[in-house]
């Protein structure tokens, strides 16, 4: 069982918690885990979404570099 846990520690998914997602920033290239509440706050007061046009499809503030920039929201990580 412990060896299984060790193996899964290699994957980001092992850190997944309910009501969280990760944000991938096009500026600093960091990926950061945030809760849905934090995501809402980062998008406040203005944000854009261009889901089919760009890989980094959402424009709001990156929690890692604090820049307003294009990010990708990964709901599955």
């Amino acid at each position, binding site marked *: 069982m412990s060896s299984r846990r060790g*193996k*899964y*520690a*290699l*994957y*980001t*998914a092992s*850190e997944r918690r309910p009501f969280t997602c*990760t944000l*991938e920033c096009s500026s600093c*290239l*960091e*990926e*950061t*885990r945030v809760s849905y509440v934090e995501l809402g706050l980062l998008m406040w007061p203005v944000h854009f979404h261009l889901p089919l046009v760009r*890989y980094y499809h959402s424009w709001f503030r990156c929690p890692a570099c604090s820049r307003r920039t294009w990010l990708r929201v*990964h709901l599955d*990580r």
Partner: protein
Amino acid sequence: MSRVIAFANQKGGVAKTTTTLSIGAALHERGRDVLLVDLDPQGALTYSLGYDPDGIEETVNDVLVRRLPIEKAVIAGTPDLVPANIDLAGPDTVLLTKTGREFALERALRDVANSYDYILIDCPPSLGILTINGLTAASEVVIPLQAEALSHRGVGQLLETIADIKRFTNPGLRVSGVIVTMFDPRTRHAREVLSDVSSLYGIEVLQPPVRKSIRFAEASRSGKPITEFAPSHPGAEAYRQLAALLDGGRE
């Protein structure tokens, strides 16, 4: 869009590097644009192409850890190479604390996805974060396998890892098949292991098997792929046939 193929087997000494290099060179001979990515801290692929791993400034380590654009680490050649050296032993610990650590190589390769027909990744002989990066970035995986019992056991472990990769990071990853290396057709053991692999795991064994030969070691030492070092050698011919098989679906 490139076809990204990872060559993986956590067992060392099964000719992963030789297979990656030879298939890459054979695809290059067929007129394909090929990028080789050395993901092994031992830098064997880098050495086999005639470069001194320790004398290279920018390597795949800089791409994964410093987020250097991958084009800056590419050494133009026949085929092109993203080199590695012992610095690549670091990312295991550096990446392990980062969210999205499995996607570092996939992110980097996005920048060159339209520049090459094939990107071939030489994975290290382990099932750590580097191999996971290789398998996450790939669309398919080829398993070089030495026809002997211990290699055979490793296939089961590798398939478990591939199942984890499909579950967590890359649902589209598929196993293209096994390439049998260092094959000695005179031994019954080698033939039995081959038949076990296809029956136990249901993986296609790509034909032909590559026979054992000292010419491969000599080619590595000369810094050339076997297809260039000994173009008419049966091993070079075998890799040409395997490359044609992998390239089959393309014009």
